[in-house]
């Protein structure tokens, strides 16, 4: 069915993928895939490009409320490969996933799967066509048992037709198929070591087990190609090995994978080729070695470079042995962290390391499990956000951080809600710091640009003149020239005496500016040092791009 392909035109690399990208095809054509695949339909006369493109993404664009998440992404996935899709936070990986799988419709661009234009199809139509996805945060069907979850997946079940399910004559057929599926389901569960939980409600599984269930379910759909969204997060190393073995096994059988993963070791050792996204565009494409040695990729992960340093005062925030997470899912273990008066501290680390969760736990938004959080020598865990802000701590969330329907001034007023009277002086000083806000005071915040919204969010958090400001990825989603500007603004807030604890994707830039930095990996502290020392540390670099 997929013989009239024009792989060469489709796979024309985008302008910004230079040298390292093209030569992958000469040595890495995915031999094993071709060997096993149903190679009947593919003419060998397709030119030098012998590999067959199964998924072609061309010029995808999508923006949400003025913020461009995906900005002209084009790449191809060849049949039988495990293609890695990586990039720093906010690079547009998840959005790309959602556009390909039909969860969101793209503003522009085309998605072709196996020769069919599937742009704008519904998720179920795409799945039935053979392109199935897993979710980054496992979405188990809580109220159903584990085995029901797995049995749901196989396509075109006879018993999904109402009459077959009900009528006596037809139901025998259904039972026949159910028995076969049950056997497969048990096998799959055994493989994922979930068989002892088969009769449990899926809602009672642990985080890692949910991931496994999700994988099991996807495999049961008999897909041609699987999109895996961070499948290894929260899976223990033994199982991770097994999963990867299974992936390769499936690859040999002719399955194709597109793989979003933050664990660089996994990506570098198991994916080929690797596509790197940055700021909604394809930054580089090629085999792991090429990508890893691409200076621009390192820069994308670590940001620009150059050292700088400042001094430290008395202890303001003290975190000791903190365990935290969401519900039953533990994200952080044994975190230690200090911020001194007036100090500028950043937390860096790979995606999914738990950086934002640290902030959310300090601010009473994630579930505290164990340990100690002290601010100004007072224990603050268990307090609500509106109690915490009265103690001199404030927080700027990563996204959705302004009230879009309120005016700029009203947004700022809300920042001082707990005060009986609006601190006019404070408002004036914030207007002085961000003059554009004074200009736009009467406009709804939703009409501001992304950079201005970030400014407003900071302004709102400064209304109570906090001693410590928590900033969650202040430069996320901003254009490159605005990143510098935003971080400069953070410097000035710090210069004015406010201590800063910041999570930032642009690690180099953040480490260069801060007094001290923490590197968080897999929910634990790995390194702590002065920012510029960390910056030079080879091990830290490896945490971002794999060893």
């Amino acid at each position, binding site marked *: 069915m997929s013989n009239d392909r024009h792989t060469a035109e489709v796979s024309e690399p985008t302008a910004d993928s230079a040298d390292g990208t093209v030569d992958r095809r000469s040595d890495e054509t995915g031999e094993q895939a071709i060997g096993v695949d149903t190679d009947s339909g593919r003419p060998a006369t397709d030119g030098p490009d012998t590999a067959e493109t199964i998924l072609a993404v061309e010029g995808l664009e999508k923006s949400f409320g003025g913020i461009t998440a995906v900005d002209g992404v084009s790449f191809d996935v060849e049949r039988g490969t495990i293609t890695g899709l990586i990039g720093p936070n906010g690079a547009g990986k998840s959005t790309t996933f959602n556009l390909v799988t039909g*969860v969101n419709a793209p503003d522009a661009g085309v998605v072709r799967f196996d020769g069919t234009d599937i742009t704008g199809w519904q*998720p*179920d139509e795409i799945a039935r066509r053979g392109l*199935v996805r897993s979710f980054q945060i496992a979405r188990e069907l809580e109220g159903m*048992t584990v085995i029901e979850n797995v049995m749901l997946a196989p396509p075109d079940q006879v018993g999904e037709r109402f009459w077959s399910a009900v009528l006596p004559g037809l139901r025998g057929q259904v039972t026949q198929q159910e028995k076969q599926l049950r056997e497969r389901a048990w096998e799959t569960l*055994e493989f994922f070591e979930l068989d002892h939980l088969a009769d449990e409600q899926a809602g009672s599984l642990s985080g890692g087990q949910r991931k496994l269930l999700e994988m099991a379910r996807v495999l049961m759909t008999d897909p041609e190609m699987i999109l895996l969204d961070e499948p290894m997060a929260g899976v223990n190393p033994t199982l991770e090995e097994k999963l990867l073995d299974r992936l390769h096994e499936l690859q040999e059988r002719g399955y194709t994978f597109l793989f979003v993963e933050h664990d660089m070791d996994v990506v570098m050792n198991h994916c080929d080729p690797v596509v790197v996204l940055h700021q909604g565009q394809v930054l580089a494409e090629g085999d792991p070695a090429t990508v890893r040695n691409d200076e621009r990729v390192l820069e994308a992960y670590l940001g620009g470079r150059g050292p700088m340093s400042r001094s430290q005062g008395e202890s303001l925030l003290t975190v000791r042995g903190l365990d935290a997470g969401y519900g039953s899912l533990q994200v952080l273990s044994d975190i230690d962290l200090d911020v001194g008066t007036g100090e500028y501290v950043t937390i860096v680390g790979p995606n999914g390391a738990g950086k934002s969760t640290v902030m959310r736990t300090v601010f009473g938004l994630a579930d505290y499990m164990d340990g100690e959080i002290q601010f100004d020598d007072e224990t603050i865990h268990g307090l609500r956000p509106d109690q915490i802000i009265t103690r001199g701590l404030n927080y700027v969330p990563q996204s959705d951080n302004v009230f879009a329907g309120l005016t700029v001034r009203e947004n700022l007023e809300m920042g001082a809600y707990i005060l009986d009277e609006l601190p006019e002086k404070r408002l004036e000083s914030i207007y002085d710091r961000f003059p554009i806000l004074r200009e736009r005071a009467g406009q709804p915040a939703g009409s501001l640009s992304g950079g201005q919204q970030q400014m407003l969010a900071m302004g709102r958090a400064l209304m109570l003149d906090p001693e410590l400001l928590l900033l969650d990825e202040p430069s996320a989603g901003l254009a490159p020239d605005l990143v510098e500007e935003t971080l400069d603004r953070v410097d000035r807030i710090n210069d004015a005496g406010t201590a800063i604890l910041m999570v930032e994707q642009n690690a180099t830039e953040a480490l260069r500016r801060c007094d001290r930095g923490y590197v968080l990996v897999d929910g634990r502290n790995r390194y702590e040092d002065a920012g510029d020392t960390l910056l030079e540390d080879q091990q830290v670099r490896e945490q971002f791009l794999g060893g």
Partner: protein
Amino acid sequence: MTPAPLERLLTALRTRLDAVRGLVGNRRVTDGGTVRSRASDLQVVAGLVLGLYVLFLVLSWFGGFQDAEALTSRLQSVTLLALVYVMLALALNLQWGYAGLLNLGVAGFAAVGVYTMALLSLPAEGLGLGLPLPVGMLGGFLAATLLGALAALPAIRLRADYLAIVTLAFSEIIRLLIRSRPATEFTIAGQTLGTGGTSSLDLPSNPVKRLLYQNPDQGAFIAVENPTVIGDPLFTAGEAVGFGPSLVERVVYTVILLFVALLFYWLLVRVGNSPFGRVLKAIREDELVASSLGKDTRRFKIIAFAVGCGLIALTGMLWQMRAGGSTAPATFEPELTFFVFVALILGGSGSNTGSVVGGIVFVALLLEAPSFIQRIVDTQFGVPSPPDTLFDALTGVDPFLGYMFADDNISALRFVVLGIVLVYLMQNRPEGLFGGRTEEASTVDLSERPDSTEAES
């Protein structure tokens, strides 16, 4: 509104159910799996029904129904209503419990069924087309199914609360149309049709009458003179135990309804315990997951909604046709819908056995018991005549009781209790009496592990 006594009542009920379950052996002991568990489900229901019958016999006895005919008559009417609610709850469970579709138009779809049937099957010289009753019933079923599908087509994409408002509005539109003057009586192609407007509409004589009488359409006194071969022995037997013909007729009708209810249960268990039901459950839990796995979720939702509406309509017809049946638009006010919801949530939405238990418990303890209690108090102690106003009622115990036990107030009190029960359930036990249990959605017992795989791995 202290929930403590209610909590105790529910706990007691649960313990009893558990005890019954304990007697017949736990679910899925060693072998036999699903078959075994279903058997025990039936036993739980049977135990519950038996218990309630004993309770009602006692209540009726003290309520002054002391001869066999009066006792049976009371039990019959409670049973019939319970069966109706069981069937409605089962149908609603398919929509809300399985597929998560909040249908607040139960009453409206029931009305569509009943009035379509009436239009088709009432005598041609009356307000109908004079078609045979089975055709009328099929027509009523199909009309509600089609209308359900039609309503579902676009509405299915809506958020649950929007769907709730749309279906409620839909239900009210139907009721208002039925009672409107243009619909009361109209003529198409020389044929006079009509809904009877606000007043009650006599329905075609039900199939049981045809079974028992040779001339069912004649007045009761004349019809009794000419029983059929089936009717004759039944009437004779009835006479022997002192049952009049009308009671015999109603008992037979109730027994037939019982079989229909069993058919409903069988059907819905089959729907639920199948790959079809599995997809519905998945839609309820997380629609995006279901569609990401390739399920055309809208098809499943539309079928579930339409079939549910058809079954609701069928139940409505069978209910309204009960011996000497007539119907009126007032029957189909939104309260009916809310009643069914209380029944379903009480039993445990998502569970077919729960729906059955919910329907029975709802009718027995919430809908019917108050009037029984009223009667008992009346016959045993003699309810004081109700005082004129609430203030007179507050002057002492007797006037207060008299006020509360007045017909209007006991009915209103019942609603108050219903409302409180609903709030209590949503707050404390949203899974209901029988919720939270698993009725595995498969035609086979999924826990049965194929032997071969053990060796393979």
